[in-house]
């Protein structure tokens, strides 16, 4: 589908939280961006009511770079509030619908970006990943999703979820877009010190010759039969491409979920302290209230359910008396998981698993999941994210008519391995378009 009448498209899929139907005929390409990246011209809410009415005076660096390269920003994509979710069902502004089945989720938290990448031709979307928020929706919507190394793409203008975890990346139907757009958005940015120590991006130095499959990830609970069949078939395809495959032990992976959620919510709870009825979004408070009561009134009224849950969890895990058991321990465990990956990268170019353990669930199934059920669903996407390693989801099969993703993780800064993998995979596997009709 060409970008045209976005209003009717958006009514059907709810992928945008804000968009323009105006077209720039001089634009070299059209892109969209997750709504936790600040942008001039568009209200920026990050899926949260507390930011309603916020019109940033500046573009986030990745948006500025794409615009400078001739790109036209067509809209801001819908997402879980501040990135807090696996299904994009935690947005205050509508829930994106999966183009393969409108009763199912696009995945999260970059669900709107994955939906836009699946529905529009010649379209690339900027997503953001903290614990799997690019590859999860890429998997559920049947598109390519690349989360670069932590620090590869500037976070200037990104509305923080977890500072030590957030990564800006790309979603597209076309594998060739990754090589085209990653060099544009990557690079050092003095506005983001964590981007300043990165080595130069070299696409072409390393290729995918061997992969490791962690036994512990595959033996974990909950990988569905349909996903396993697609995964097994994908491994045969990889072997056919001349890639060596070996099963390995990675014993620390099972600690990824608790370590990740402790670090992520600890960081989130401090980042969200800034939303208090001053400076951004809603500021229509009662100035007769006392300091603490004024702040509390906004936060209680405008934060959503999952945001409150994560603020509570993160505040608790770094409180005096609990920080050593949770936050400090989680940082140490992250180090052990990084070492586990590094050991594999001495012998292999990438680690592979399915991206998500099941196909996209229906919304009625999601509503029955507990918070912990939802967190545990991330057990395949959280390991590369907590380690800051670049990772890629490619569409690798279809189960019950829904897309399944294959997840590649490479060593820090080796995005070239993933781009090589995506391009070779794209020549070996026929990716299906969702049947889009209005």
């Amino acid at each position: 589908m060409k970008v045209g009448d976005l209003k009717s498209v958006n009514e059907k899929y709810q992928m945008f939280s804000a968009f323009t139907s105006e077209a720039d005929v001089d634009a070299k390409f059209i892109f969209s961006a997750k709504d936790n990246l600040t942008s001039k011209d568009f209200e920026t809410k990050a899926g949260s009511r507390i930011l309603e009415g916020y019109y940033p005076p500046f573009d986030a660096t990745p948006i500025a770079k794409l615009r400078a390269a001739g790109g036209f920003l067509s809209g801001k994509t819908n997402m879980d509030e501040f990135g807090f979710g696996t299904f994009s069902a935690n947005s205050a502004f509508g829930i994106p619908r999966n183009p393969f089945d409108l009763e199912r989720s696009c995945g999260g938290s970059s669900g709107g970006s994955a939906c836009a990448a699946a529905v529009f031709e010649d379209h690339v979307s900027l997503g953001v990943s903290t614990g799997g928020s690019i590859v999860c929706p890429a998997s559920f919507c049947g598109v390519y999703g690349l989360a670069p190394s932590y620090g590869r793409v500037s976070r200037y203008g990104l509305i923080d979820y977890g500072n030590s975890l957030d990564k800006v990346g790309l979603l597209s139907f076309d594998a060739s877009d990754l090589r085209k757009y990653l060099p544009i958005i990557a690079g050092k940015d003095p506005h983001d010190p964590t981007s300043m120590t990165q080595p130069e991006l070299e696409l072409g130095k390393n290729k995918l010759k061997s992969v490791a499959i962690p036994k512990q990830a595959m033996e974990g609970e909950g990988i569905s039969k349909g996903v396993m069949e697609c995964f097994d078939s994908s491994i045969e395809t990889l072997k056919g491409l001349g890639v060596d495959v070996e099963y390995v032990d990675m014993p620390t992976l099972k600690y990824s979920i608790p370590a990740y959620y402790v670090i992520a919510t600890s960081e989130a709870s401090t980042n969200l302290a800034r939303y208090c009825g001053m400076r951004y979004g809603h500021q229509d408070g009662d100035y007769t209230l006392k300091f603490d009561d004024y702040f509390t009134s906004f936060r209680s009224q405008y934060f959503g359910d999952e945001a409150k849950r994560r603020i509570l969890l993160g505040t608790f895990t770094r409180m005096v008396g609990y920080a050593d058991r949770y936050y400090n321990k989680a940082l140490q465990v992250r180090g052990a998981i990084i070492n586990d990956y590094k050991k594999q990268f001495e012998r292999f170019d990438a680690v592979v698993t399915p991206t998500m353990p099941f196909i996209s669930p229906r919304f009625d199934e999601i509503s029955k999941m507990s918070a912990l059920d939802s967190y545990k669903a991330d057990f395949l996407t959280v390991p590369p994210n907590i380690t800051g390693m670049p990772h890629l989801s490619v569409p690798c099969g279809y189960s019950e008519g829904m897309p399944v993703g294959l997840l590649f993780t490479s060593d820090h800064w080796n995005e070239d391995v993933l781009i090589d993998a995506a391009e070779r995979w794209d020549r070996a596997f026929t990716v299906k378009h969702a049947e889009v009709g209005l």
Partner: protein
Amino acid sequence: MDREIVERVARIAHLDLTEEELDKYSADLGEILEYFEMLDEAPGVENRGFNPVEIADALREDEPSMEIPSEDCLKDMKTYDGYVRGPRLS
């Protein structure tokens, strides 16, 4: 997690929870923290930094600069006499 602890945490986090929310988050956080107990037995590495990759300080020259004019930053903020407006301190 005990309701009393949830109430204490909520107060620190500037959240005013309803009785229903207190019950719900108390149950949810109890279940989540029980699952997190596996961290007690997890192997760890000493002296890990706060970031997953090595980060070095990157400081600019100590010279005044203003990339975004202050009036642009203030345009959507509630202000009083050019200052950001907030609640009283006492």
